[in-house]
């Protein structure tokens, strides 16, 4: 009898640990997958969609990991890194690189921007420890709106990118055809029936994910986790807390820059102006859905979270549409992802109380 009680309690505990919102979201996706064949949606196409979207978004979600580890919280300032990536992409095209080469050039050009922006951002976050997330959000917003002006003013001239009539100012959407469209996805792409797997992109994600995983096993990586877990402990153990936090912010920013380039090569377009504005929120909710919390995150959280999140994004429109003839996907996505973030924000206080 005693055992049955503990078993019940254990289930209760693990539900509490896993979190009700996460459980609902996972359950919802499972339900969608089961329903899909019955409502006439083509499952292989759906799965292929999920894999593709995973390959576009994975690195953006991965960019959350270093800052969560060092205790800087969820990186709502992701747009700052995205801007570095956009600068890399547009300059690469402007300088005349084409094809796969333009992708490499874009990453190379984006890197110094990401490093500089990341350092400034990290310096700022070190000055306002404890208030990171709110300020990160607005640093992201401010930088996006500042860049809106810059896209108009900067002396770009490539006819593929500027407004045709005025001959200056970048367009809101720039096609990557002839540049790095499918630069990674095209490598060793596997096509079976309706399923197409972007092997190159997946490998690239795996490479970066492995690099982060490996980094977290090094001495500095260990220090980063300790700083996030208890900064006072790390300081007493001789770790330079500010330097580690700065490093994590730079890493997050650089990953965001690379992440947006990978996203663009899959999507086929560069989106400028207000597009990066709300890009942080899907990435934040994805990693939370994957099981991360405000101060703990693993590579596994990234993978699981991105699959679940993108699964819902791709499955809901078709399945729901076929079922009740209403496309409620957008609304469901907003409620699910924001609910997840709210849950994570309210949880830590409860634990430490």
């Amino acid at each position, binding site marked *: 009898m005693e055992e049955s009680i503990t078993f019940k309690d254990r289930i209760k505990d693990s539900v509490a640990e896993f979190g009700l919102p996460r459980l609902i979201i996972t359950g919802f996706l499972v339900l969608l997958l089961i329903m899909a064949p019955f409502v006439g949606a083509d499952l292989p196409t759906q799965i292929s969609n999920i894999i593709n979207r995973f390959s576009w978004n994975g690195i953006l979600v991965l960019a959350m990991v270093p800052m969560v580890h060092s205790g800087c919280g969820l990186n709502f300032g992701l747009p700052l890194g995205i801007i570095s990536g956009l600068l890399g992409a547009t300059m690469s095209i402007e300088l005349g690189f084409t094809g796969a080469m333009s992708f490499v050039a874009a990453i190379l050009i984006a890197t110094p921007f990401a490093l500089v922006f990341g350092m400034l951002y990290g310096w700022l976050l070190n000055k306002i420890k404890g208030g990171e997330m709110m300020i990160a959000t607005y640093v992201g917003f401010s930088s996006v709106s500042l860049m809106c002006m810059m896209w108009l003013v900067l002396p770009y001239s490539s006819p593929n990118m500027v407004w045709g009539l005025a001959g200056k100012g970048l367009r809101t959407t720039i096609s990557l055809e002839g540049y790095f469209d499918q630069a990674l996805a095209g490598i060793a792409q596997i096509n079976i029936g309706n399923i197409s797997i972007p092997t190159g992109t997946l490998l690239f994600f795996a490479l970066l994910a492995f690099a982060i995983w490996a980094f977290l096993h090094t*001495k500095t990586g260990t220090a980063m986790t300790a700083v996030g877990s*208890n900064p006072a*402990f790390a300081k007493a*153990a*001789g770790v*330079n807390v500010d330097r580690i936090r700065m490093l994590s912010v730079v890493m997050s920013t650089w990953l965001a820059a690379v992440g947006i380039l990978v996203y663009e090569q899959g999507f086929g377009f560069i989106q400028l102006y207000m597009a990066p504005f709300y890009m942080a929120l899907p990435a934040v909710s994805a990693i939370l859905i994957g099981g991360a919390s405000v101060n703990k995150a693993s590579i596994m959280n990234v993978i699981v979270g991105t699959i679940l999140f993108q699964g819902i994004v791709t499955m809901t429109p078709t399945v729901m549409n076929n079922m009740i003839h209403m496309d409620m996907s957008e609304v469901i996505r907003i409620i699910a992802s924001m609910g997840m973030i709210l849950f994570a924000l309210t949880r830590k206080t409860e634990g430490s109380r």
Partner: protein
Amino acid sequence: METNSAPLLKLQGIKKDFNGNQVLADINLELGKGEVLGLCGENGAGKSTLMKILFGAADITETGGYSGDIYLDGQKVSFETPFEAIEAGIGMVHQEFSLIPGFDATENILLNREPEKYSFISEIFGDRLNTLDRKKMDERSAEAVEKMGVAIDRHMMINSMPVGHKQFTEIARELSKDQLKLLILDEPTAVLTEREAEALLASIKGMSERGISVIFITHRLQEVLTVCDTVAVLRDGVLVECTPASETDEARITKSMVGRSIMGVAGSDDASEQPDAPTILSIEKLWVDMPGETVRNVSLDVKEGEILGIGGLAGQGKLGIPNGIMGLYEAGGTVTFEGRQIPLNNPRICLDSSFAFVSEDRRRVGLLLDESLEWNISFPAMQIQNKFLKSYLGGLIKWRDEKAIRELTEKYIEELQIRCTGTKQNARQLSGGNQQKVCLAKAFALQPRLLFVSEPTRGIDVGAKALVLNALKKFNKESGTTVVMVSSELQELRQTCDRIAIVSGGRISGILPSSAPMEEFGTLMLKDVV
């Protein structure tokens, strides 16, 4: 008036234990109307626990309550919350201020008891929409301040007040409660200047004349003798003395506070002063800005291979010494280790010079609560000495050596008898004593030349205490590490250390061999008390 014959407060057979640890044993006390009782005792003697029981504090009810009876005005009472105690006429002024910084004194004195003006809107939306009656508030606070007899500016904001006035604001708040019969003052003079302290003593006398009884907790014995009618001394949870103030003196109180007639272990059995040993660490004119543990101008030499104890009452600065040297709080002065000067305010350099520190604040500084024991024990050694790392690609990449870390952790689990489910268990899940052992293991793994240990037995049970102290002694003997141990428990220092320095008022008031009689330690402890 019928209750005139019965004392205002009567404690009968009060007992309290925390998880089997007896902290109060059979306390019997009486306090008449308008009487002033001085309560003395070392830290941890049970003074604050007793006051918490009287005041219905949450940590008493949450840990299973107490046994024994309390009578107030002849009626048996038992308070579940402080609010009930306040309702019954008990007021308490804590050591930490409980004031709203942006309110003036008047607003704080009447916080949540403001006189209100009736308005018809409150009929609909409830009483909270009555407006405050500022005029009446002013009158009430003036009355309270007048009762206190110490003039303070009632319209000054708390955050621009000198600290003494904050204390007086708190006292005035208690006095403004009409039902107040008994006021408990917990070390109120610690933050006061000499003149303010005098004013407070006069004020206490005034209260007593008005028929308010006062329990006055302090380490300043002179004050006790000046103002109190009765002096009660607690030691190890036992009321060892309760005499009229006129029949006792400072020496006698001191003796009661520290003297242990029964268990008078005369120092550590294997204590050995080594006058010839070379000085390994020399501290000169050290000051440390650690809130609540300020260190002022400390000079101290530590000899190679010894265990030096640092004792003293809480808040006198003994904790500030290791924390300041290790760079965790702002510090100044000169620290010389093996002839080399160690720059202050840089934890890294201290660790590189093979110091190690076991912090008194286990949960906040000492441990990574949400990480495994492996991480906790190996982390400093890995960061400082590059231990437990494996090199790949010709040293380009250094990874954690999980196997070496596990072996290290297993070694210390066995050596220190850490009770846990395995090396991967989170530190948070261990009991206090086992957490403390992890902290020690972490320091031992650094193989330091000089080890600071701060309050190693705070909040752990008896069995674990003995284990921790023995482990320290063994480590000192076997690896020749010099140990500086800071503790509030004098008995423990005497058992463990070779020499004991006593800190009082942020200064070293004297250094004694551990075999010195308890009275001498007691006198040093109270010498410059703040």
